[in-house]
């Protein structure tokens, strides 16, 4: 049981490894990148892009992403916040979802 928490903690602390891969995912470019690639920003794209920026945009703490160390902290912090949000969501869903087990002594 304790081992499981330790594994979870290690996975979370290792997430900044995901920052080492450079570049955007294909098809997830910023408007600047799109402009660089095709020479213009499609009209509809600029209209709807970044409709919701998020509280921690791109898993970083705004203004605290100057170097890899800061980005890594922001990334781990984002992982913790994200997981907490998921657990809270399911705590609520758990009240309305799932079969109530019959009493069987």
């Amino acid at each position, binding site marked *: 049981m304790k081992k499981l928490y330790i594994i979870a903690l290690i996975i979370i602390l290792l997430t900044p490894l995901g920052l080492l891969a450079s570049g*955007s995912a294909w098809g997830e470019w910023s408007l600047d990148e799109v402009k660089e690639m*095709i020479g213009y920003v499609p009209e509809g794209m600029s209209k709807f892009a970044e409709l919701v920026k998020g509280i921690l945009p791109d898993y970083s703490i705004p203004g605290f992403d100057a170097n890899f160390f800061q980005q890594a902290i922001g990334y781990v912090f984002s992982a913790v916040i994200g997981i907490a949000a998921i657990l809270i969501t399911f705590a609520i869903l758990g009240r309305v979802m799932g079969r109530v087990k019959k009493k069987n002594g």
Partner: protein
Amino acid sequence: MHIPDGYLSPQTCAVMGAAMVPVLYKSVKEVNKELDKKDIPTMAIGSAFSFTVMMFNVPIPGGTTAHAIGSTLLAIVLGPWAAVISVTVALIIQALLFGDGGVLALGANTFNMAFLAPFVGYGVYKLMMRLKLKKVLSSAIGAYAGINAAAFATAVELGIQPMLFHTATGKALYFPYELNISIPAMMFAHLTVAGFVEAIVTALVIYYLEKVEEDNILYQYSYRLRGEKR
């Protein structure tokens, strides 16, 4: 694979969102039928796992990145309908808190990663089991198929945009590349790298869950793997 807002036309977003309504409805009904209340925390663990796995970007030759999803793993452990809910919650949190994937695009993103991926992955896993392959290997093959199905759907949704939505002069209104570019690009990233990452992650966890002892919290959640019914 998280389509940002502005990449799909509002019409496409509406169609994909509408497609997800019956899927989510059916998922909730099936979960209510198949899972006990005390199993819901496993769905939470699965959702958190999927969320975290998606943070591990892996480099793709050519300067882009991709990541695993964990959809097939969740489908095997929790059942495909519960996997739909778990991955959907992870995708909603990613869109709202981190701007990863659009909010208007949530219908498309959940369709690809939370519906297609777990069901294709689970279907292929079941098929492999029927062909008498070992559980761990079957899960790996299923996971590889599942994530690639999602990548293909993403490429199609993106690639049809310039055909359908452009200005009078032919300039794209939304995503600018056609299918002949989007499909090879997405499939290259997922057939060569991300698919194998998904397969390995899935196989490792299934291997671990099969060995889990009774005192482990995951034991009560891995009954499906031991073929037990509830």
